[in-house]
């Protein structure tokens, strides 16, 4: 086959994806950038390019506060999810006999809608919810606990549950790929189970951990459903503010600016994290 027809074939094969990405990612992004440079004048748009929106967003303490909180909550969700997922992935990859069954069980939450799962947590954590009723019935508390719902904790808990499979699967794959003789070699060279884990398994699964972290961290920063349903006023995140700009406040240019700033912040944190984690992984000897 000559090179030209190969190129043609490649172009043809990637055309649908290119078209799809072009229409649904690149074009909206360009529109978003354009909007962020315009100004909302009540019902009309002033299309004179200006950086006023950026100035407003960057100087507004509320934006900064929400942005930092979003990143911190997302980081907490990521840490909690990965920390809970790793042992499960480890168990399935190395100890479990019926791997397929376990993997199937892990995907079961996906069989119901995301919204329903968030509402389920609301039912569990609520004032008259499952948790409070059970603790009351057992006589462990005298009145319902109110710190369970409508705060950061509820957001972290709900999202950690929702993301679990996304963390388990990449980590499972990276553990599964480890040649068992490497662990035997570590043992043979005098490592106990913990040392083998820290010096061989962990560094060899860094890529899986990084992938899991990114898969969770990036969409969590932009999540607004969970914070609005279980977050209360303490659990509001940047995406809730963006939603307001595009909705009730009817200030699309500012909403576009906030979206772009959120994107940049997430990108920055993610890049720093990937570099940091890979370096750390390589330093384990």
């Amino acid at each position: 086959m000559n090179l030209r027809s190969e190129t043609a074939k490649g172009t043809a094969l990637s055309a649908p994806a290119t078209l799809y990405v072009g229409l649904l990612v690149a074009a909206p992004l360009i529109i978003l950038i354009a909007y962020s440079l315009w100004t909302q004048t009540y019902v009309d748009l002033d299309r004179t390019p200006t950086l006023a929106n950026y100035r407003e967003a960057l100087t507004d303490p509320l934006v900064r506060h929400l942005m930092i909180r979003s990143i911190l909550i997302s980081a907490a969700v990521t840490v909690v999810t990965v920390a809970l997922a790793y042992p499960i992935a480890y168990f399935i990859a190395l100890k479990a006999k019926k791997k397929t069954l376990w993997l199937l069980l892990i995907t079961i939450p996906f069989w119901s809608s995301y919204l329903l799962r968030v509402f389920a947590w609301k039912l569990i954590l609520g004032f008259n919810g499952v948790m409070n009723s059970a603790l009351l019935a057992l006589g462990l508390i005298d009145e319902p606990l109110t710190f369970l719902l409508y705060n950061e904790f509820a957001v972290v808990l709900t999202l950690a549950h929702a993301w679990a499979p996304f963390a388990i699967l990449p980590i499972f794959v990276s553990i599964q790929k480890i040649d068992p003789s490497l662990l035997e070699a570590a043992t043979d060279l005098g490592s106990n189970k913990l040392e083998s884990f820290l010096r061989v398994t962990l560094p060899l699964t860094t890529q899986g951990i990084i992938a899991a972290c990114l898969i969770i961290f990036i969409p969590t920063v932009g999540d607004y459903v969970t914070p609005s349903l279980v977050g209360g006023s303490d659990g509001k995140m940047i995406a809730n503010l963006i939603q307001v700009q595009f909705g009730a406040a009817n200030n699309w240019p500012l909403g576009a600016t906030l979206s772009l700033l959120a994107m940049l912040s997430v990108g920055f944190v993610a890049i720093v994290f990937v570099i940091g984690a890979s370096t750390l992984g390589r330093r384990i000897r």
Partner: protein
Amino acid sequence: MTEKNIIEMTGVQKRFGSFQAVSDLTLSLREGEFFSLLGPSGCGKTTALRMIAGFQEPTEGKVVIDGQDMDGIAANKRPTNMVFQSYAIFPHLDVGDNVAYGLRNRGIARAEINRQVSEALEMVELGGLERRGANELSGGQRQRVALARALVMRPKVLLLDEPLSALDKKLREQMQFEMRHLQQSLGITFVMVTHDQYEAMTMSDRIGVMFEGRLVQVDAPATLYASPSNREVASFIGEMNFMPGAVKEETDTSLTVESPGFGTMTIPRNPNVETPGKSVLLGIRPEQLEIAKEQPPEYDATVEGVVRDVAFYGENVHYHVRVDGVDSRIAISVPNYFHTVDHGPGDKVWLGVQGESVIDLGQQSDKPI
């Protein structure tokens, strides 16, 4: 080599469910020897090695290393180190860190670790390659790193699981000599598992042959080749022509036998087999047979046959000859002295053999030859 036994295995058994991987293995290894466990795949040799290493616990029996009972002693506490079949080089570490891995578990000072690592790499001729990445190594280099990583631990016994099977033929032959020299200069006991008889013979002081979980014979390579204890060993080690013989006369050191084709000859008794009784299984190595156009004089027994196949191996020429009265074809191997192949398929030839080179394989079993 000393007289002290470094490893003593007594009545060791290993069962996986209903499968008997190793049955009643009793074996003593001397300090400083190069010992090979040889057998076809699935014969239990690797399981035996893994029980010494501590990766598998014997179902029954005792493993003693350097006077210490290994029962309940985990693999990471044993005075053994292993070279794995896949080499198991840590892919996230460079050569130096791979070799230093075990030393770091011992809490040795960094400078001392570096010194020992570079010394170990010198020893396997990889001096100065400390910072080479694990993925930038050739097969032969990986093998050397695996050797250095195990030897730097100064184990009492080095275990090698098919260490050369992943290398190409030329490199394998070179490594055989290198590993032998290394073993002799270090004086460490090497225990190697292999299915390759030539590998076992070129490297080992002694070889233990295993079949179906049983240790069948333990001897020096030359003894194993000259006096195999049964038909299985005889056919696994080198090539062998088998034929039945009827015992006419027997003394303490010799048997006079009559075989179809070759007629009557007197052969030495094999100390490793049971008293033959009336019938005996005879073995003749292909290189012990003479092949000639005329009846060769000065041979104890001769027979006429027809060449069926000729195979040219370079250093040797192999003939397969059909002889009346002998069921299977007789293989003959002739050194290629003069770059000539003297006989072709269909030629009438004479075969000759000396009685003292015929091997007595004991009482003939009912198994077809």
